[in-house]
């Protein structure tokens, strides 16, 4: 899995691409570290280039949600498709991380 982080004002966009599996644990740590932002800050995960997510990858989104709660960030996601979208639907992830337009 690869990822990029771009910051514009109070918005941080984290773009994930490739396959998100349990072998990417180092990248996962970095992704969560990229959420170290002040309270009220917006964080959006762009998943349009993400092809696959396994249960470990899913766990990262739960940690992201928990991190956003603790740091009082406004977390959202967009672009989930195919297998990723199916996994998220099964796990009701949109129930805790809103989908941004």
């Amino acid at each position, binding site marked *: 899995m690869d990822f990029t982080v771009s910051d514009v004002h109070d918005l941080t966009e984290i773009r994930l691409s490739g396959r998100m599996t349990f072998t990417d644990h180092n990248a996962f740590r970095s992704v969560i570290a990229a959420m170290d932002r002040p309270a009220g800050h917006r964080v959006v995960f762009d998943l349009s280039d993400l092809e696959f997510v396994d*249960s470990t990858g899913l766990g990262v989104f*739960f940690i992201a949600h928990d991190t956003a709660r603790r740091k009082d960030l406004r977390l959202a996601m967009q672009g989930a498709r195919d297998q990723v979208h*199916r996994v998220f*639907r*099964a*796990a*009701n*992830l949109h129930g*805790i991380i809103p989908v941004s337009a």
Partner: protein
Amino acid sequence: MASGQLYALDLGQPLGDRKVLIADDSLYDQRILSRFLHWAGITRIACVSNGPELLSCIGAFDPDLLVVDADLACADLLALCRELRSNPRWHDLPILVQGAQMTDQMRTLCFQAGATDLLGKPVNPGECIARVRYHLERRSMVQELRAFRERVGQDLGQARAMQLSLAPEPLWLEALADRHHLSIAPVFETSDEVGGDFWTAFEIDAERIGVFIADLSGHGIAAAINAFRLHTLLARQPMEELMEPARLLTSLNQRLSAILARGQFATAFYGVIDRGSDRLHYAGAGSPPPLLARAGGLSVLDSSGLPLGILEEAGYVTRSAPFRDGDALFLYSDAMTEAQDADDTMLGDDGLADLVAQALAEAPAWPLLWVMTRFTERFGTRLCDDLTALWIARQDVPDRLFPPSD
């Protein structure tokens, strides 16, 4: 001038307890080598002067490393090496052959005969110490690793047996299935190590049984420990909680949210087969979607829901589907849908549904066996994840000796 200043070597691991055997017919060379070894902190040194002496002393002395002169008296060096290597006790012994002006061919022959390394003669102390240190450290690392693996292997073997015993006992399960006019065929295979798959069944009353399947996130020991915790939580559930699927998941979720670490969770599915109302009541927490086989065909159950352990206040929904005689429920862990074949093609939800549909068409009497055979053919038997699969079918009892009492 102290040696430490001339050949400033990193001290590394202390070697004071290592034993080195020197085989050299020259007393002078024995002394020189011994001195170098002393500089390296090795004091347990024995010296022999010829082949027969070497062979007779080595057993009692039990060295960690042998330095043998290529021209050792009364010895054919190559035969000596081969003889030592043929003894399982010296299979891993570092054997350093020390020789002056050895030809390339001789050097190759030494290695082929089992020498570990070659030293020149005369050897400079720095090189001698460096090579001896290297081989001693490597040998001790390998020994430690081997001992650790054995110990952990035994521990994991025990843990794995314990994990397998969490699933319902076969005789109990058979009796339960019999009483409820069901056939329950389970497959529960742990991967190489322990993992987080878990399933169990409950008898609610004369007409209802509950079937619970879960997959704790992560792999290995942490996931297995959480599987044991989940088993304990379930064992403590009062009967009222087991009657209503959403209620059980809500209750489990509250407890797991409190005890699972950040990011840990369990996907789960709980179904209650109610023969009184000919229905299956069920609730899901993100488990792989179960398949329901009915006369009209195969349908997919909605088991969506927030996995257990993420949000304490999460809610779950009980859904329901008809479940009559002849109908069957197929539950499975994601090891099946995420399995990849030789071409790295994943089975997927659709692939699995196709497989099950084929099984019903081609082997209606033993569909799970058919599915698992085809699955193993295509994906092999080495699992990188626990695999759980359950086939639960309602069936009329063909020859009944006594009419039903209801």
